[in-house]
């Protein structure tokens, strides 16, 4: 396993956000982190990217405790749900900026511009871009970094159907390249069938973990259930 959550708990001053959560993700695998708003998805991600520290439990990456991995060699790329940019730099300048930071990444800026169809926006500053294009820019910047684990927090917001299809294809490319992908969303129909496994959270608790068929089998749900039906049935049982 590449990423391992081992009994991780985290609490904000007034709420327990993660309650002894354990799961694993392997390389070459897309894992869906599923949950309603406030379920603990973003908190789990913030713990992985070391923005927060677990109250108890450990997170391992490639067998090493992430707290002991130096930031400079931490192989994670993160697509935030609220992308941040340099408001006075153009789209192209952003791409060159990240490329300069990670010269070893073999992905060429030009290819990325082609793939994500960013040509007509190259000289625009972020505030002049549509929400979808800003989202595409943040995806492009994440792909230009050196990473083994790609984390995407609500990446579909603002993307139109064509852009969603391009982004899904990009995630599959990452998978084929042997990277691990963690995809957090509450738009269940978007990830149904895309992810190899699902990690379902409710009020900070892990309510299910595994492939869709494993979850259906374990919890004795209807075979033809959609991901949404599975999730709703599980949270009903949990509550």
């Amino acid at each position, binding site marked *: 396993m590449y990423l391992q959550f081992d009994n991780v708990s985290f609490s904000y001053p007034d709420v327990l956000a993660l309650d002894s959560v354990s799961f694993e993700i392997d390389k070459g695998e897309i894992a869906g982190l599923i949950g309603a708003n406030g379920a603990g998805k973003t908190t789990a991600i913030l713990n992985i990217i070391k923005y927060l520290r677990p109250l108890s439990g450990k997170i391992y990456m490639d067998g090493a405790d992430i707290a002991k991995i130096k930031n400079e060699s931490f192989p994670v790329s993160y697509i935030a749900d609220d992308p941040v940019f340099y408001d006075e730099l153009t789209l192209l300048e952003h791409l060159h*900026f990240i490329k300069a930071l990670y010269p070893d990444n073999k992905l060429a800026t030009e290819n990325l511009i082609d793939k994500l169809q960013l040509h007509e926006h190259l000289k625009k500053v972020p505030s002049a871009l549509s929400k979808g294009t800003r989202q595409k820019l943040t995806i492009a910047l994440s792909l230009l970094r050196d990473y083994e684990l790609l984390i995407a927090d609500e990446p579909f917001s603002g993307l139109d159907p064509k852009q969603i299809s391009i982004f899904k294809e990009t995630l599959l490319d990452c998978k084929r390249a042997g990277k691990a992908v963690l995809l957090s969303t509450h738009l269940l129909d978007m990830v149904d069938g895309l992810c190899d496994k699902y990690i379902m959270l409710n009020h900070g608790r892990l309510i299910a973990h595994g492939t869709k068929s494993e979850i259906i089998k374990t919890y004795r749900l209807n075979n033809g259930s959609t991901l949404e039906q599975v999730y709703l049935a599980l949270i009903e049982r949990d509550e």
Partner: protein
Amino acid sequence: MYTAIIKHKLRAAKGLLKHFGITTIGLLIVVCYAAVQFYIIVLNGGIGTALPEKYIFYFLLACAALSGFRVLIKNPPIITMNAATLHYLYFTKHFKRIMAIKYLWSFIRSLLFAAILSGFISGFQANALFGRYFLLLCGYLFLGVLLSWSRYHSMKGKSPLTVIVCYILSSVGLLTESGVISMILNYCLVLCWICYVVFRLPLNLAKYRKDLVFIDENNSAASQYNMVKMSQMAAESEAKKRRSLFLYHFPLKKKNAVFYKCLIELIRTGNRIWGIFICLLITGFLFYRTPAFSLIPILGEVDTLASAFSVLVVMMVYRNVGEILIKQAVALLTKHKQGLFIPMEKRQIILSYLAASILIFAVITVCAGFIFESKVHFVLLFFALYIAVFTVEFNLALTESKLSKITNQAMPMLSIVLGSIFLI
């Protein structure tokens, strides 16, 4: 890579200068002028003349208060960077370098601030007095930065005891001894906190990122002169603030609910607005009671003009508070008219607002009476007349009478005339 960050900073600064340059320079000139006047006339200082001992204490007290605000109260982070810098550089070797530059810059700022303050204390002479206070203040101010930064990243959301203890220790040393002992104490504390901040302090990055995003959005809106976004952000930020006083904290009854609602609304108008009102009252006090602004041509030279200006400034507070109260009442009555159920008649709502207004104006009148050292019966006379006039204005505004336009024009003049009662 660093070129791109510098390019971004220069472009943002260019935007800010383009839109706010003249205002900022104007404001800076006014503040510097006021500070110099205060320094020369009230504190009896000057180039070549050191401050009298008693004023040095007040100077240091002001420094302790400023540092206390930063260490114990200030919410935004004391060290800032672009949210994008944190996001894209955190997992690179450059982040540590940028943090080191940020710490160094904070130290240089403390150094410069300490030099200016010590200059004021010693009369801008390079002597032992300057050296003593420069060394003392430099350590004290930088310690304040480190304590504030540590408190900001505290995970429990409140000031850790060690931060409070260190602040109290260094402040007591600064105010009581101001010599070698407090210098040694400050620099020992600075060294300990530097080690802690650099090697041990766990940064609360989730909170830091959120605050940096807010600061960035604000700066970006200012740089692009997007006033709509700026006011929207200010309103959203105000709405998100944690409230400590709620309507249910009052002994609510059907009769007094609107009265308390009006009081709470007025309190929640915003710290900045109340800050401006307090500054206006202080300005009135300084003009009327002290020679702080006596060097201002004409206005400072003619006593009558200075008194009239003080009245004008104080009456501005009355006018603005009145405006806020009227706007709130109009908003509530409009909603009531449109169907909001309030189990009382319009007349009772108006009376509740007037009662709250009387209470607020009574408090301001006590302050004004103190500023102008007026006799009690004149203060009472002013209060009775002002309330009478305000009641008329209030009712005209609520009835949307054509007369309200005339009163809008006449009220400022009438207020100043009424305010002159304070000077009798």
